C-alpha cells in the first residue's frame, strides 16, 4: 500500500484528486492499479508497449525510482509515490 501524489497536469484524469491510495506492494503494481482506477490516465502514464512515458519520472519519497529498483521498487504503507512531469523550455 502507498499514497500516490498526482501532479496538477494529470488531475483532470483523476476527478481532481491529488492523492490516491493503492494497495500495490511495488511501484509498478501501484501505478498499474492507478491506471485501472482511472483508465483515461493510463494512456498518459504508459506508452503502448506498457513502459512509462519518457517525459514522466516517478519518485518514492525523495528518490527517483531509477536510482532504486525502478518499477520493482517495493513500497510500504507510509511511502509516498510521486508522478513528476518533465518541466523544461528555453528561448531557442
Amino acid at each position, binding site marked *: 500500500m502507498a499514497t500516490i*501524489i498526482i*501532479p*496538477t*497536469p494529470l*488531475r*483532470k484524469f483523476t476527478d481532481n484528486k*491529488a*492523492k490516491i491510495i493503492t494497495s500495490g506492494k511495488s511501484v509498478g503494481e501501484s501505478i498499474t492499479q492507478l491506471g485501472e482506477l482511472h483508465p483515461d490516465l493510463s494512456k498518459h502514464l504508459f506508452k503502448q508497449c506498457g513502459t512509462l512515458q519518457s*517525459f514522466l*519520472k516517478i*519518485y518514492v519519497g*525523495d528518490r*527517483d525510482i531509477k536510482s532504486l529498483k525502478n518499477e520493482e521498487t517495493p513500497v510500504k504503507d507510509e511511502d509516498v509515490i*510521486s508522478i*513528476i*512531469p*518533465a*518541466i*523544461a*523550455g*528555453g*528561448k*531557442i
Partner: protein
Amino acid sequence: MKATVEEYLDLSVVDITKKEQVELRYNEAIEAELVQVARNGYPYEIAGFLLGKKSEDADLVSEVYPVENVAKEQERKFEIHGLDYLKVEAYALENKLDVIGIYHSHPDYPAIPSKHDLEFAQSVFAYAIVSVDGNGDTLINSWKKSNKKFIQQSILIRS
C-alpha cells in the same frame, strides 16, 4: 536582438488569431519579484512556479516559488529538477494553493514562447515569460497551450 518582435514569432508555435479567456492576475509585488529574479539571473534563464487560486475567469497568483535552473545551457534553456517539482506540489497541497503555472526568463529575447517551450508545455499551466535585457529592461507576457500551440493570456496587475 533582431529588429522587430515579429521576426521572432514562429506561427507553428504561437496562434495569434486566438486569445486565452482566463486572465492571469497578480499584484505589483508579484510583478516586482518576477522582474527582480529575471534581472538577478541575467544573462542566464531563471525559472519557478506561480501559485495561487484558479477560478473560471482568472488565474490569481498569490505567490512566486523560485526554483533552481538545472539545464546544461542556461543562457538559452531551463529545466526544473524532479525533486523541486515534487516539493512545489507538496507545498501547494499543504497550503491549499493551486499550481497555476511556470515562469521563466528570456535574456535578450522577447517574451514569446519557443518551440522548445511548446515541446514541454502542459495545457493546464500558464507560462509567464519575462523578457530581460542587459539594461534591466523587462516585459512579461503569459501564454497557455491550446490545440498544440500557444495562445496569449492577458495579464491584469493590481496595485
